[in-house]
């Protein structure tokens, strides 16, 4: 009798995880759209709370856009592992023969594709509303795209640590937000430099360096955290 073994290579598993997560998330469009709506809403609040004065708004726009985008990514973290934890597929992931860090990395990739990347694309639009000076829009989008990838990786550590807790929401922000600060500093800094007409490349390079570091270390931390949350 011949048994057809399913393919078990790492690439196969990563591809399957990415495809599955993309399909699942695209079916629940609300969860993908909510962070974007939240982002736009928070940006709407600032002129109402501060002043509609375009000069003032233009000055604080880089920081506002970055902080709002950061909070939007943070809010989307709770669902990163929650669904898989509830239906037990997270346990399957842990039992898979492929290395767990690679598999969680593909989950984080999907999270970034459907949260960080849309936020980066949407940010220039909101920049127009905040009278962000011309010439800084490309830097804003690139810095958010690079930075939000680090945010997804760092945030996934927090999400993995709190996924087993019934009410982990506020705790998750307490754990994750302090770790976001370097990304915020370099990201908002890049946009500010671009607004002043300087060269934003050094800032973007630093954001890239943070991303490289996060890519190197975070998957292991996420994997360890998931094992603790599932197995105790």
């Amino acid at each position: 009798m011949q048994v057809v073994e399913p393919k078990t290579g790492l690439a196969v598993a990563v591809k399957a995880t990415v495809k599955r997560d993309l399909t699942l998330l695209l079916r629940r469009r609300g969860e993908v759209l909510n962070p974007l709506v939240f982002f736009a809403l928070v940006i709407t609040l600032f002129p109402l709370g501060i002043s509609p004065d375009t000069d003032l708004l233009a000055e604080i726009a880089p920081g506002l856009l970055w902080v709002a985008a950061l909070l939007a990514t943070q809010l989307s973290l709770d669902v990163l592992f929650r669904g898989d934890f509830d239906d037990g597929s997270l346990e399957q992931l842990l039992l898979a023969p492929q290395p767990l860090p690679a598999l969680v990395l593909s989950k984080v990739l999907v999270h970034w594709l459907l949260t960080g990347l849309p936020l980066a694309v949407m940010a220039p639009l909101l920049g127009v509303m905040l009278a962000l000076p011309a010439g800084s829009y490309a830097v804003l989008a690139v810095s958010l795209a690079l930075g939000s990838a680090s945010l997804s990786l760092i945030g996934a550590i927090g999400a993995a640590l709190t996924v087993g807790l019934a009410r982990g929401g506020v705790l998750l922000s307490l754990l994750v937000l302090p770790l976001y600060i370097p990304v915020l500093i370099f990201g908002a800094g890049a946009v500010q430099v671009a607004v002043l007409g300087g060269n934003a490349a050094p800032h973007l390079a630093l954001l890239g360096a943070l991303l490289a570091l996060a890519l190197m270390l975070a998957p292991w931390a996420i994997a360890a955290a998931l094992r603790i949350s599932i197995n105790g």
Partner: protein
Amino acid sequence: MWAFIHKLGSPKWFYAISTRLLPWFWAAAAVLLMVGAAWGLAFAPSDYQQGNSFRIIYVHVPAAILAQSCFVALAVAGGIFLVWKIRLADMAATVIAPFGAAMTFLALFSGAVWGVPTWGTWWVWDARLTSMLIQLFLYLGIIALRGAFASRDSGAKAASVLALVGVVNIPIIKYSVEWWNTLHQPATFTLTERPAMPVEMWLPLLVMVLGFYCFFIALTLTRTRSEILRRESAKRWVRELVEGRTGGDTDGL
């Protein structure tokens, strides 16, 4: 070597050794802190720029140093616990975290108080104060995460992972905050940054730092011993010790 480490990791052996060491650390802490306080408050010369408000340095800097050392200690204990499953390391981590948070608070408080005569305001987004504030949030996160788990073992492991993640991040946070600070406020001078401090000024500071370290070690040993008794209360040697039958100390610190 490995035998020694595992012996050190045995709560009973640790308890016996620390019984002998503890009085020395408490005594050293008391002497150093009292000498340092008298020296720093009364005998060290006042600063030509800041006058006597400079004497706050003798509590601010040791607290800030301890706040950072405690975080490193927390991460090391967490790593030992995760890799070798030595429970003693986790008992130490349990008691180090609140002390580290207290030291971070102390550094923040003394920095804010010092800010009034120096900058004319309680709070300035100075690099050291800002990274201390972030560090306080990290400590609070670790303490909260440990408390959020129903099972002590899961909470201990989660807190250990977070401590390791935090210790990787602290230097990055520190440098990014410093860099951000020089970008936005080039004019303000940092509280403790000064060209070569004279010997009669930094010697009392050294005494205070050593005193804080001795206090930290003594307090951590004492509280770890309590933690051992609490967690190992079903063990025979703990029962005998509690009843005072082994001739061990039951009420001395």
